[in-house]
């Protein structure tokens, strides 16, 4: 139903409660699983399945409403604002991990190595005698054993180029749809998704290399922790972004979008660019320096 002003106000929202129950089961299951309790894994996957089901249902409903022209431009801009600030919240989530990286490298690391004011010198002299701080560090306890850091050349560099290229193809897709060219739109989208998929594939490759050849693991002290958490969460976001773009592509094939009305694509594209920018941050602060 829409109001006299034409703003669409839905009724009888049934998906949210499904989502809540799904999330609840998911988290409960995850908690049990972490504690190696019975049914943990099962509940985790049941919860995840419910969430996926909810997403299909909910987004499907929105897509249908959108197709049937229920939304006016004001609704459209609500979606835009929403997506924008959602992405901002994601940026802040990454900020926490970048903050941790920054803090470890500029404060706790040097402090443990005896550099800095206050008790730094004594910290090193009394508690960590002989520990020298140099960045790729797994701390005075040599946690996780000797490892080699991940260089920036090779896979990471290729990945950077891949993602940058995918940003370009994504923008080309945008130009295409704005001009109403559906075919090129789909092709550019496909290129973007494929580039994303290759990126993920290469990242898996990189992780395997890290674990087997470099002895670099999640447990390799603070370097391993920040490396895998940052790149891992990023990889997860790439996956989500690629899925979004893939769904958009399917919808494009089914002719859901027009030159004027293609917000679903734009939202996914914003997300994709955000993932791109985060990667540049990663490439600079995790790999390069």
């Amino acid at each position, binding site marked *: 139903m829409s109001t006299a002003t034409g703003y669409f106000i839905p009724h*009888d929202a049934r998906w*949210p409660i499904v989502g809540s129950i799904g999330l609840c089961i998911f*988290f409960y299951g995850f908690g049990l699983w972490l504690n190696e309790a019975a049914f943990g894994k099962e509940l985790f996957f049941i919860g995840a399945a419910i969430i996926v089901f909810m997403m299909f249902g909910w987004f499907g409903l929105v897509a249908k409403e959108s197709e049937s022209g229920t939304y006016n431009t004001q609704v459209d801009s*609500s979606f835009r604002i929403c997506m924008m600030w959602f992405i901002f919240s994601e940026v802040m989530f990454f*900020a*926490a991990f970048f903050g941790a990286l920054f803090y470890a490298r500029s404060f*706790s690391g040097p402090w443990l190595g005896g550099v*800095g004011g206050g008790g730094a010198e004594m910290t090193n002299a009394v508690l960590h005698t002989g520990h020298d701080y140099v960045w790729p560090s797994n*701390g005075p306890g040599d946690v996780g054993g000797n490892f080699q850091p991940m260089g920036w050349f090779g896979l990471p560099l290729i990945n950077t180029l891949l993602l940058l290229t995918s940003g370009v193809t994504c923008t080309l897709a945008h130009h295409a749809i704005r001009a109403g060219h559906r075919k090129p739109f789909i092709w550019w989208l496909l290129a973007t998704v494929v580039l994303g998929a290759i990126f993920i594939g290469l990242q898996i490759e990189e992780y395997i290399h890290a674990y087997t050849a470099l002895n670099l693991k999640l447990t390799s002290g603070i370097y391993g922790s920040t490396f895998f958490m940052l790149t891992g969460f990023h990889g997860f976001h790439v996956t989500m972004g690629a899925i979004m773009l893939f769904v958009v592509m399917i919808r494009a094939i089914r002719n859901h979008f027009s030159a004027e009305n293609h917000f679903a694509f734009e939202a996914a594209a914003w997300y994709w660019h955000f993932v791109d920018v985060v990667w540049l941050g990663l490439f600079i602060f995790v790999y390069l320096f």
Partner: protein
Amino acid sequence: MSSNDVTHHAPDDHAHHDHDEHGPAPGLMRWVTTTNHKDIGTLYLWFSLIMFFIGGAMALVIRAELFQPGIQIVDPMFFNSMTTLHAIVMIFGVVMPAFVGLANWMIPMMIGAPDMALPRLNNWSFWIMPFAFLIMLSTLFMDSGGPAGGWTLYPPLVLQMGDSFAFVIFAIHFMGISSVMGSINIVATIFNMRPPGMTFMKMPMFVWTWLITAYLLIATIPVFAGAVTMLLTDRYFGTSFFSAAGGGDPVMFQHIFWFFGHPEVYILILPAFGIVSSIIPTFARKELFGYDSMVYATASIAFLSFIVWAHHMFTTGMPLAGELFFMFSTMMISVPTGVKVFNWVATMWRGAMTFETPMLFAIGFVIMFTVGGLSGLMLAITPADIQYHDTYFVVAHFHYVLVPGAIYSLMAATYYWLPKWTGNMYDEKLGKMHFWISTIFVNVLFFPMHFVGLAGMPRRIPDYSLQFADWNMIATIGAFGFGFSQLMFVYIIVKCVRGGEKATGEVWEGARGLEWTVPSPAPYHTFETAPVIEPSTVTR
């Protein structure tokens, strides 16, 4: 109601397009599937009232144990989980949801919008909360007990927790999702749902404060989520964020936590500022003094709140330069906050005041919040804070800003808007009694904490030295008095919901703003036709 010459349409004026079939759905499912901002607001408000009694009951366990020296009722471990859960419930389960509930009810009505921007998302934001607290509170019944490391969750202590640790973390993630979605919705509503003519500077202060609060939430809750995620991986996946052996640092958690935690305390107070800025002008029958500077002050507080976090960490061994910076920046917050206080006083000045219950609570808020703010200023002075830190002086400080601060603003808001919500006047006599009894007891409860704190009683202890006995006993008496007098609050609300003298649309003689232009109770759908807002229309 001369000031409110807004053109609007009550719903029955409408042409009856497909409306009526979308009145509230019958039965329980109405509440589960509702997308109506008023319904969702109601759900939030009831939820938070229930949680208030749960969190309060936990506080009473704390106070009962502290009634006398020695350990009488609970094991120290359980005591610590009471402290922790009390804080988590009160902050995330009471004050925040209550403010979101008020935002839901009032923001669309205040700006003349038909509903929130994204009604389905709005429903979800609420329907996450009960599940989140289900998980959180269920940890109390697990073998390893509830979280007992304080609401600040400092590692390595919190990592010693047993199996329920994972559930605590996930419950926090869960609540975070709700807060972020709720805030995004509020931002979208305020930006996108204003009818033509409703400029930013015509919005009521409550809308402004919530807009800024929503930004604080969107910017900090994800950081908190990141911090607890690192705790989770340190505990279960062998990362070393907070362990020196691996090159991390326990203090790093504190920095990340307080980067969230300090803005969080302003999240708990900015909407309160908005409420009080609505109520005082009404009962002083005089326009809010210095509206523009109120807006700028709110924005300045929000901005400053991002650069003061380490004032919670003056004893962690920060470098001198850091301590100086955080001391100065923290002190600066007093300036915009002072502007607010002075503006309220100036609004009262030469008004024609009456003292109905909402006004009493609002004035109580201003006075007692200022008491808490001034002790906050004392805490900001680093060398003195080294003595105050982690004592009951801090506990006194934050309860003054939170209980007669945030909680009072919620009560003021409830009394103020209850007639609008229910169509009935609440019982004024009981309301006044509720105010006076609460105010006496809340001071008996929290004022003595300043003394025992200064004299050296640390916080988070289940037992204390004999010299603190008298004041603790008094505080406990205050706690039970304050706690049980809140049953009056529930009684008054229920009584008002069930009936009473009928309220007019305007309700209060000096009321200003669009919400008073619709009938009481506010119809299920308001402003489906956008109100016409002229430059001369009074909207705040």
